[in-house]
């Protein structure tokens, strides 16, 4: 079956620093989505990547889809305390039995110290 690995599991960041979280799949993806969940909250959709090598930016967040469509990264610059939360990647697969089904990574839990 399809496997998804998201690293790191935890990320402790000083305010103002940059960090990156990575998501890797064992099989080629049709798309990848990223979500953010604040403590005590619900996952919030951030972005979807579809094209090989695609790069999208949202203010201080940069999302990248690998050339082989098997991996993705989320890079945050100049971290702020509002960036606290758990970031999930969610993988969409190409196989027909996975149609419509997203597989979520385990998440990267981010703690920001002022």
């Amino acid at each position, binding site marked *: 079956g399809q496997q998804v690995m998201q690293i790191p599991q935890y990320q402790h960041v000083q305010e103002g620093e940059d960090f990156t979280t990575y998501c890797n799949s064992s099989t080629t993806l049709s798309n990848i989505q990223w979500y953010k969940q604040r403590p005590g909250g619900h*996952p919030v*959709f951030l972005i*979807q990547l579809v094209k090989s090598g695609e790069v999208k930016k949202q203010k201080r967040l940069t999302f990248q889809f690998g050339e082989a469509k098997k991996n993705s990264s989320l890079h945050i610059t100049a971290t702020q305390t509002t960036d606290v939360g758990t970031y999930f990647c969610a993988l969409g697969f190409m196989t027909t039995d996975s149609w419509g089904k997203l597989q979520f990574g385990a998440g990267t839990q981010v703690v920001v110290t002022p």
Partner: protein
Amino acid sequence: DTAVSQTPKYLVTQMGNDKSIKCEQNLGHDTMYWYKQDSKKFLKIMFSYNNKELIINETVPNRFSPKSPDKAHLNLHINSLELGDSAVYFCASSQLGAGGLYFGPGTRLLVL
């Protein structure tokens, strides 16, 4: 206006009881989902309905029975609750094949 709403927000109950969680979306989406998030924050899909038809039915005990009376509503009934059912249950909706999931606020279920 809440896009995806769930009730109740908290549910504390005894083992062996039966309970229901309700979900409604006003986004006009054609697909709705139930996800379970365990204590380690792992999100696992349970069911999905597209235009009231069941399209995803993961390996979930048959004590869990979803029901979609129309495409704006998806309910989850759980029979004979067990300790291991304690988790946060999220409802979500989307337009299938077009963009991300919109999650409800979650129902925090605690089985004692």
